């Protein structure tokens, strides 16, 4: 054994024999890029996204379908029409043989690409074509309503949270009332009142049959639901030190809002997007089912289910198909929503 001096040479060797410590850290990345990568790795979420986009694409191709595949105008009643199936010409509506033999039963699904894949409804219209057009409306309404909800809620939430004081108190009381009002009842009240006569204040005039009415109503009704958590988030952000520091440095309020608060709130808002799309689709379909959503001649998945009610036992596919479409979209959006939340904000509570 050698002398026990501090032997730098040996010490250095001994040190060198020790393996390198922890491998170098990956360069920290833009949180958006990190989140996007995480999302891409989430198989279920990716599949859901693709499914949803496929549905959107199909619905957008509604006019093509109507022209090339189904042939008939999905909005014109076709009570006396005829269709060629298997080479045979049959009337679209036939005298009913079920039950008491009263009324007319439309033809059922042919299950073949071409006219009347899913059969006809009680006005002789091609269900599959209407399904695609209806989907267009349902998706459009859900989409625009989501934009309205998120924009409104972000505005209210940020204003209430960052200004505090009286402004916050007043807004919160208002939100409390709106929040306590059951969403469907609020939507129903507004729809009843506005649908029949339209809306006419000053420069804003919306006729009663317009799609804008359900869009605006559904958009507004969910604002408190989203505004509350955003307000809460803004409040907690305001209490954090980096904001206090910015205020202390004399940074003007608008800049603090723009640079510090909004980007942080943005993640919460993005997490809400798939969820709100799903909720809005459900609300729209319920309102349309109750005949106070989309009005004829427009169609949406909800109205088609309503159309299918009378035919439920004889031609169930008229009602089944749109419901399945809604369920599929909402399911895909829910799974996607879970994935987005896990990628961006894993600590947030479910719901």
């Amino acid at each position: 054994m050698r002398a026990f001096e501090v032997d730098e040479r040996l010490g250095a060797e001994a040190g060198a024999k020790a393996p390198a410590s922890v491998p170098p850290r990956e360069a920290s990345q833009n949180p958006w890029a990190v989140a996007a990568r995480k999302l891409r790795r989430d198989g279920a979420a990716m599949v859901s996204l693709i499914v949803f986009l496929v549905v959107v694409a199909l619905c957008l191709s509604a006019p093509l379908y109507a022209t090339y595949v189904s042939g008939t105008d999905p909005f014109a009643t076709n009570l006396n029409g005829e269709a060629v199936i298997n080479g045979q010409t049959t009337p679209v509506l036939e005298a009913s043989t079920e039950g008491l033999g009263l009324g007319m039963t439309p033809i059922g699904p042919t299950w073949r690409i071409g006219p009347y894949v899913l059969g006809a409804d009680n006005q002789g219209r091609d269900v599959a074509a209407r399904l695609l057009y209806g989907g267009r409306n349902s998706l459009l309404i859900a989409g625009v309503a989501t934009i309205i909800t998120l924009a409104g809620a972000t505005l209210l939430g940020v204003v209430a949270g960052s200004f505090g004081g009286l402004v916050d108190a007043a807004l919160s009381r208002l939100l409390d009332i709106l929040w306590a009002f059951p969403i469907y009842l609020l939507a129903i009240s507004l729809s009843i009142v506005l649908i029949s006569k339209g809306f006419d204040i000053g420069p804003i005039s919306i006729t009663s049959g317009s799609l804008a009415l359900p869009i605006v109503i559904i958009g507004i009704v969910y604002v408190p639901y989203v505004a509350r958590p955003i307000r809460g988030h803004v409040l907690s952000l305001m209490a954090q030190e980096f904001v206090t520091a910015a205020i202390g440095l004399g940074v003007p309020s608008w800049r603090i809002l723009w640079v510090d608060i909004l980007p942080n709130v943005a993640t919460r808002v993005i997490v809400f997007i798939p969820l709100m799309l799903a909720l809005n689709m459900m609300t729209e379909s319920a309102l349309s089912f109750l005949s106070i959503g989309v009005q004829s001649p427009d169609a949406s998945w909800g109205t088609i289910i309503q159309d299918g009610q009378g035919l439920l036992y004889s031609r169930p596919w008229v009602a089944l198909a749109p419901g399945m479409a809604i369920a599929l979209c909402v399911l895909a959006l829910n799974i996607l929503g879970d994935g987005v939340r896990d990628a961006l904000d894993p600590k947030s509570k479910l719901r």
Partner: protein
Amino acid sequence: MLVGLVSRFGQMVFVLVGISMLVFLIFFATPGADPAARIAGRNASQETLAAVRHDYGLDQPLPIQYGMMMKRLFVTGDLMSFVNRGQRVTPMVAAAIPVTLSLVLGAAVLWVLGGLVVGVLAAMTRGRWLDRSLMILSLIGVSMPVFWLGEVANLVTQSRFHDTMLFSWVPALGYKPITEDPAAWFKTLVVPWITLATLYVGLYGRVLRAALIEVLQEDFIRTARAKGLSETRVLLRHGLRSSLVAFVTMFGLDFGALVGGGSLLTEVVFGLQGVGKLTYDAMQNLDLPTIMATVIYASFFIVIASFLVDVLYAVLDPRVRHAR
């Protein structure tokens, strides 16, 4: 704690007043059409319109109109539906309440039990096939529109499979009061109960699973295990009991949405003459007084119910009790 309750009560009253004002404004003050014409319904004669204007004080300032309306709704109970030729609204609503309550409470029992079972099972077998399947089924349950599910249920139980042993007992759509025939009452409600509960079992199962998994990471769970308690006991008495608060919060919130919307749709689809169906029929006829009354009564009920849930909160979680 009393201080907290009183303040919460005050808040509730504030919200109730706010809602009544909001509803009033929506029905009476949205621009577009003459409120008298709205209330009197379509094809109302001039005399009817004049009578409406007088009765509702439509030529008077808004606050007075509001006061008169509230008086009619809550004090004298003589709000009349013009469409239904003088039928009083309040008794109609009163008659419809037992139906809605039967539907909603029965479904609530089902979904609370179902949610508990699903949540606990999923948390216990976390990551394994039972957990995954339960979560997928829950998601599917949450994604189906309740009225559509009801239609499907009808299709199956009333039409396609009605003759099989499985569903031959399902009676025709409609409601039978429990006082008349308890067995029939039960049979008319079973399918609606299950339909309505499906949505919520999924929702609650997912939330409970997440809450339980979080709680199970806590230190006191490790202590409970170190005490030599059985795993079931640890899970239920220590884990579940500590996460019940989240469950109850949700319940309070959802009860509102349910009574407001879900039960309405279910009643329509299954032909149950509850408050929701009443509202729907009134909607078809544009019978505004009835709609307004049902909306206000329903909203009030919901707000009061969530206040009661808050009280239940304090009972369940001693930390909340003492924080007040």
